[in-house]
């Protein structure tokens, strides 16, 4: 779950809880409120009826006379004398039995309607009654007036109240979710920015840092911590690269020394043949080591490089100069070379480095292509890029290895190093140079059939402004 959603949930949860408690208090307060007037009404009517009963003027008709114009048939009324004999009851009281509680306070009773004729709906219809018992004592005789009112209307009011509260809660919840989501987004926005920045800092752009905000808050601290981490990371990266550079450099003198000695020894006439053969073999191993050190140094120099010198270079010119050096090799291996490069295609970059890229690629293509094979070199502008692809027939590379061919010292088959030479750094160097130019390299292959490597270099900005 995203933190934004969590924060939203927390805000909404606490908000809803507070609203709920608030609503509950309001509800409990409001619930008793409507009964007060009814209770008072019941009391008053009870008192009046009581007095009438005492005076022996129990109304025969449904209406109470006098200043009260109340239809008694709307009420459930029973009047008992001191012997608990019913001396008066309304129509409603005949049909419905309500329990009598020895209680001065009003209470609510819910009854099922026994039969039709109560005027309160169908049989079985549940009706709430507010019941009140009034005790009257006059001239030695006591009366008990039990008076009740069906509460149809009032129950509705309570339901209304509940509905309002529910609606209010719903609206509040929706509002809280909406606001919570917004607030969470607002809180998290700087984190998103920091995250994006941190993500964009790759091992190629380790010199970049997260900009520090103005307010010295927790996010400022976070940015600071991240930047300090990047400092340490960059330091150790640079240290490592510098170490490789220094180590390769230090290796050069002893290798030179050994080469001088070994080659001198090979030329000696006083050594047994078998020993000389071994010396030749060792010298070749030493030569490979020397090559490896050279490539390591090249690569570390490239790794430490952050920018390159750019110049406008004719791509067909560059490729042709490289291919010229291989002309005899193509002929000797009877390789069929196809070139498809527009004459006016130009790239922007470091000429020496790009030349190295193509030397490495052509070298690879020749190395891994069979005699009588095909090598096709194509270049074209595709949108804002220049795409150069080298295709060669040959044994190809298994799919699983395609991703790793650019890794340092990676070889598709370990045994290939002996057969084909090379240091295992050629493609790593190619990739690094292309990346320094802001481009990408891609390798495709059909095992047993062909291999194709494609370089994409961005077109210099001014050349498409020209068009």
């Amino acid at each position, binding site marked *: 779950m995203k933190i934004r959603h969590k924060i939203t949930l927390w805000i909404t949860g606490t908000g809803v809880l507070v609203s709920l408690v608030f609503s509950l208090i309001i509800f409990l307060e409001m619930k008793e409120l409507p009964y007060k007037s009814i209770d008072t009404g019941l009391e008053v009517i009870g008192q009046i009826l009581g007095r009438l009963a005492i005076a022996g003027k129990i109304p025969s008709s449904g209406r109470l006379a006098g200043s009260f114009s109340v239809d008694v048939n709307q009420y459930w009324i029973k009047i008992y004398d001191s012997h608990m004999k019913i001396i008066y009851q309304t129509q409603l009281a005949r049909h419905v039995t309500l329990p009598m509680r020895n209680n001065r306070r009003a209470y609510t009773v819910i009854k099922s309607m026994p039969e039709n004729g109560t005027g309160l709906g169908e049989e079985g219809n549940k009706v709430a009654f507010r019941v009140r018992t009034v005790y009257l004592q006059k001239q030695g005789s006591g009366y008990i007036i039990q008076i009740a009112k069906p509460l149809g209307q009032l129950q509705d009011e309570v339901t209304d109240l509940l509905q309002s509260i529910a609606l209010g809660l719903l609206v509040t919840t929706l509002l809280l979710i909406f606001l919570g989501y917004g607030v969470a987004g607002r809180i998290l926005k700087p984190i998103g920015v920091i995250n994006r920045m941190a993500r964009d800092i790759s091992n190629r752009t380790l010199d970049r840092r997260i900009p520090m905000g103005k307010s010295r808050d927790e996010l400022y601290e976070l940015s600071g911590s991240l930047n300090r981490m990047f400092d340490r990371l960059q330091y150790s990266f640079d240290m490592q690269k510098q170490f490789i550079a220094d180590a390769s*450099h230090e290796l*050069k*003198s*002893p*290798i*030179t*020394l050994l*080469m*001088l*000695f070994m*080659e*001198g020894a*090979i*030329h000696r006439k006083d050594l047994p043949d078998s020993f*000389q*053969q071994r010396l*030749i073999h060792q*010298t*070749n191993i030493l*030569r*490979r080591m*020397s*090559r490896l*050190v*050279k490539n390591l*140094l*090249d690569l570390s*120099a490239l790794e430490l490089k952050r920018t390159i010198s750019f110049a406008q270079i004719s791509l067909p010119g560059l490729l042709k100069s490289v291919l010229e*050096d291989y002309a*005899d*090799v193509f*002929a*000797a*291996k009877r390789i069929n070379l196809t070139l498809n490069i527009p004459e006016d295609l130009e790239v922007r970059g470091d000429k*020496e480095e790009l*030349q*190295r890229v193509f*030397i490495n690629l052509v*070298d690879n293509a*020749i*190395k891994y292509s069979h005699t009588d094979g095909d090598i096709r070199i194509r270049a074209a502008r595709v949108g804002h890029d220049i795409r150069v692809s080298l295709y060669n027939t040959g044994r190809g590379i298994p799919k699983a290895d395609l991703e790793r061919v650019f890794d340092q010292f990676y070889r598709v088959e370990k045994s290939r190093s002996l057969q*084909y*030479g*090379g240091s295992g750094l*050629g493609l790593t160097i190619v990739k690094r140079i292309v990346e320094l130019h802001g481009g990408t390299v891609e390798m495709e292959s059909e095992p047993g059939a062909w291999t194709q490597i494609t370089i994409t270099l961005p077109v210099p900005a001014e050349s498409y402004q020209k068009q």
Partner: protein
Amino acid sequence: MKILIVDDEPDLLEELRETFKQQRYEVDTAADGEEALDKVFDNAYDLIILDIMLPKIDGLEVLKETRDGDIKTPVLMLTARGSVEDKIAGLDYGADDYLPKPFDRSELMARVRSLLRRTSEHKDTLLTVGDVSLDTKTREVFKRDVPMELTPKEFSILEFLLYNKNRAVSRFTLAEHVWGDEFDPFTMSNFIDVHIKNLRRKIGDPETKGIIRTIRGIGFIIEDAQE
């Protein structure tokens, strides 16, 4: 021929001294820039082999002061590889050639001979073996004074073998020399034989007992005619 070798690595300095002594050169050595400058101004050398990275005074500074002191002795710089800046600076300061470390013995010898020849008194730019001669200045090859058409690679192979006359040169060294440092000599050395074959055909050289001889397991050699 007197050569001054300047390098701060004692073992390498010793090995270089031995290598050149075997070739009957007179060798003097210096381990730092200060010593080098002292010796350069006190002696007349035919060639100076100068490492760029030196204690006290660095190689470029030594070169600069040498040239400022109007000493025109040819200088072969030993450079750190991959630093184009060093290369350019060296040539700007008046170095005659440069060789990146680590280098082959044959390559070093060829460069040294080439430099010595270029500045030698009689200005002999002609390298010869039997009836074949190669002019290093005009880049021409003659067979019994008849000019021949050679591809640049073939010329380069012949020239390198002639500079290392009477010494075997390995396929790898030859490949590295002909195609340069950027190329993988393991790829190229496979094709050296093809070039040698073409070269032999052009200069009318038989496979056996000819000018260019194949030495099994090592490479090739051009020797002075024995008869």
